[in-house]
């Protein structure tokens, strides 16, 4: 590995035992990649299905029941994707932080998180009164969520090519 240089925290992170194991152990890195993929399948898959319902697909399904089913799966996915992502990041943290695809990915994750927070704290609170159609603000949040998550996944893949 080229001499690690960069923020002290990242230099330290790269030198930790788990980061070294990620680089050195023959099958750990690909195994953690598999876990990371399973995590975002759950996180983004469940979120995308809920977004589609908000956008008007499958209107016959009760929105609140669907939220109770799907959103816990999204949270489980988040709990899987964050630690596995941190492990992958730790292996080459100083190099990764310089990667424009990785920087954009972090920004998009932040935006997706704020969008979801804004939606669930605000817009979704009034869902009981919506009836069949979802209001424009909810559709806007759902479309935004879909675009942001596609962007996150695209950046995640592109960071291996930049």
């Amino acid at each position, binding site marked *: *590995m*080229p001499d690690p240089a960069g923020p002290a925290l990242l230099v330290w992170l790269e030198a930790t035992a788990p980061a070294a194991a*990620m*680089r*050195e152990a*023959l*099958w*750990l*890195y*690909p195994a953690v990649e598999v876990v990371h993929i399973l995590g975002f399948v759950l996180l983004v898959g469940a979120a995308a299905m809920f977004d589609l319902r908000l956008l008007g697909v499958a209107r016959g399904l009760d929105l609140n029941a669907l939220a109770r089913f799907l959103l816990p799966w999204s949270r489980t996915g988040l709990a899987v994707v964050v630690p596995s992502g941190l492990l992958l990041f730790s*292996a080459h943290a100083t190099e990764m932080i310089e990667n*424009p*695809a990785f920087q*954009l990915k972090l*920004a*998009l994750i932040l*935006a997706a998180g704020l*969008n979801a927070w804004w939606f669930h704290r605000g817009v979704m609170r009034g869902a009981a009164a919506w009836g069949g159609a979802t209001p424009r603000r909810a559709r*806007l949040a759902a*479309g*935004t969520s879909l*675009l*942001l998550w*596609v*962007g996150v996944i*695209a*950046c995640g893949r*592109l960071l*291996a*090519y*930049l």
Partner: protein
Amino acid sequence: MNRLNALLFGAALTLSATAQAHHGWSGYDAGQTLTLTGEVAESGYMHPHGYVKLRTPDKTWTVVLAPPSRMERRGLPREALAVGATVTVVGYPHRDTADELRAERITAAGNTVELR
């Protein structure tokens, strides 16, 4: 908000077309095949890609190899890349980073291993 997101998303896609590729093969000039023989000055048997710093008569190249799990399975153990070993690589130079080469195959200790 929506317009900003569309913009960010567009930027994500545009990056793939414009920025220099580093680890995928697309960043390397496959139209220019180089065969380099030299001494291993430094090596890393690590994920996601192994590498050697290869000291050749004119300069030292950073040669990007394959994931160690693949090299191990194909008969290129860590010891084959020990510092001081003489190896030959066939590969393509990076389009933008001088001195960087992506190896298609490597010959070490009389054993040739495909890396792709």
